[in-house]
């Protein structure tokens, strides 16, 4: 940490004060968000817009620390996500969620990709925008389902299984786009993509079949040792993955997947507070790089994307819930729950920040995530009134 501060080229005191103010501001926002019962991600993004370039406050000397913190935040987000699932859940999720998952990808990746091309972007940036509009936010959705007491509902497993499929699809998608973004020649790109996919397949297979050995080695250790080993492993694997052009985030995700059993539970409890801190810094830093004066210009494509992909998620949720026998009200609830995009979309957009179209991609993604992360949970909350609107014939029922 000292080297980071030294690199910032100013005395630590200023950095501490700046960082302290930023984190306290984030705390206030997180509190406000939990008061309102919504995810804090959109709040962090809005706060980031006010900071840095084009904003009203310049972060100055702590910006360098914040940028490293943001990178760690991505790794922790993905590590925590990998820790959420046991390998059994991955298998059964894949089995039941594969068909809706494919439909989900087709309906929600395509609009983003096409809008990217229409905006005149190069192929990599358009492929990234497709990713931004594809993946629902597991963070926002699990919060919404818990807050609305919907974990027991019949349609809920279909929503959760779809999230599993999306997250696994990311294990393939992220290394592929990372390889595409890194190379410019077509032949080299294909080779890099092939290397990335083979590596991920090997690591995933090893994690699924040998993960329990690693977990058994880590398990007897105390909390201090466990958190150090898991974070160390995450940074190490993430760094090596980045070296191989696979994207550090996927390395962290695979580490999370490999851990199982009791150590998985303990590790997720220990990682959670770390993740909350660094992920908040990541969202903030992402928005800092966006010039708010460019937001109005991307509002039209963002709103079009929102409308098209909200419909796409509604259709996906409808089909997924129908497959497990939910009635039309349950299907609407599943569809609306899926609208919210969040952390993953921002992670994907941040991959392309160095591209020529990167800044515009970032701005569209920020506007899009703000729209979906705010309207999505509201739609989920009022899903039942929505379905009675759609079907006047059924008796009107009080919304949850």
């Amino acid at each position, binding site marked *: 940490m000292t080297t980071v501060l030294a690199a910032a080229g100013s005395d630590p005191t200023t950095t501490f004060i700046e960082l302290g103010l930023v984190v306290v501001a984030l705390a206030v926002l997180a509190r406000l968000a939990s008061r309102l019962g919504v995810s804090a991600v959109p709040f962090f993004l809005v706060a980031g817009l006010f900071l840095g370039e084009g904003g009203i406050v310049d972060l100055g000397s702590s910006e360098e620390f914040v940028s490293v913190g943001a990178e760690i935040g991505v790794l922790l987000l993905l590590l925590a996500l990998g820790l959420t699932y046991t390998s059994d*859940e991955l298998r059964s999720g894949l089995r039941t969620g594969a068909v809706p998952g494919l439909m989900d990808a087709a309906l929600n990746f395509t609009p983003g990709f096409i809008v990217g091309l229409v905006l005149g972007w190069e192929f990599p940036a358009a492929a990234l925008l497709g990713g931004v509009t594809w993946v629902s936010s597991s963070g926002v959705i*699990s919060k919404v389902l818990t807050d609305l007491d919907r974990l*027991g509902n019949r*349609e809920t497993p279909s929503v959760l299984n779809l999230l599993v499929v999306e997250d696994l699809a990311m294990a393939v998608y992220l290394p592929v786009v990372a390889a595409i973004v890194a190379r410019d020649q077509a032949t080299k790109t294909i080779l890099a993509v092939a290397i990335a996919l083979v590596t991920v397949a090997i690591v995933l297979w090893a994690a699924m079949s040998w993960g329990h050995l690693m977990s058994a080695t880590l398990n007897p250790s105390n909390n201090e040792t466990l958190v150090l080993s898991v974070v160390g492993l995450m940074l190490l694997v993430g760094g090596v993955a980045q070296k191989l052009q696979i994207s550090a985030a996927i390395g962290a995700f695979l580490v999370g997947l490999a851990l199982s059993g009791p150590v998985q*539970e303990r590790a997720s409890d220990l990682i959670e507070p770390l993740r909350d801190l660094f992920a908040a810094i990541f969202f903030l830093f992402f928005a800092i790089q966006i010039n708010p004066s460019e937001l109005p210009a991307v509002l039209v494509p963002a709103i079009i994307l929102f409308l098209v992909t909200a419909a796409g998620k509604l259709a996906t949720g409808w089909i997924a819930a129908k497959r497990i026998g939910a009635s039309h*009200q*349950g299907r609407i609830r599943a569809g609306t729950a899926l609208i919210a995009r969040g952390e993953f979309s921002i992670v994907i957009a941040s991959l392309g920040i160095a591209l020529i179209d990167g800044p515009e991609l970032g701005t569209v993604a920020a506007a899009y995530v703000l729209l979906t992360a705010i309207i999505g949970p509201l739609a989920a909350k009022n899903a039942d009134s929505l379905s009675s609107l759609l079907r006047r014939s059924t008796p009107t*029922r009080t919304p949850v």
Partner: protein
Amino acid sequence: MPDISETKLPGVGVRFEFTTESGEHLAVLVHRGGRREFMTYDAADPDRCSTRLHLNIDESRALSELLGASRVSEVTAGVEQEIEGLSIDWLSVPEASPFAGASIGAGMFRTKTGVSIVAVIRGGETHAAPEPDFVLAVGDVAVAVGTPPGINDARAMLHP
């Protein structure tokens, strides 16, 4: 036993559900950490759970004991409980028994039958883990643990 269906909720836990004889649909959601949620489903919209209890581990244990109380006594009344070939039985000492007035050690139950007497119930009082010099009396009930044939042999010794 009603048909209980099990659904995995990735990242959350497992949900068990069944329909009662009177047609109510109920479910228990077991969270990863052991926390449980008890819910019933709406009759008008069977996909939505309408009532729920949030129980921690201790509370759900207490509730299951209350619900299972009669069931537990039924099982104990059935006397025998088999744990992988291990059997437990309550053997009375009748008046005609050759071992009334003899110590457990003198009966050599373990040597002859492989059965251990782990407790003796006398007049409503339980003497747990009796020593070999514990003297059996008429009306005692010996709690014997062993293989089912061993227990039969021990019963034959006590009841000639």
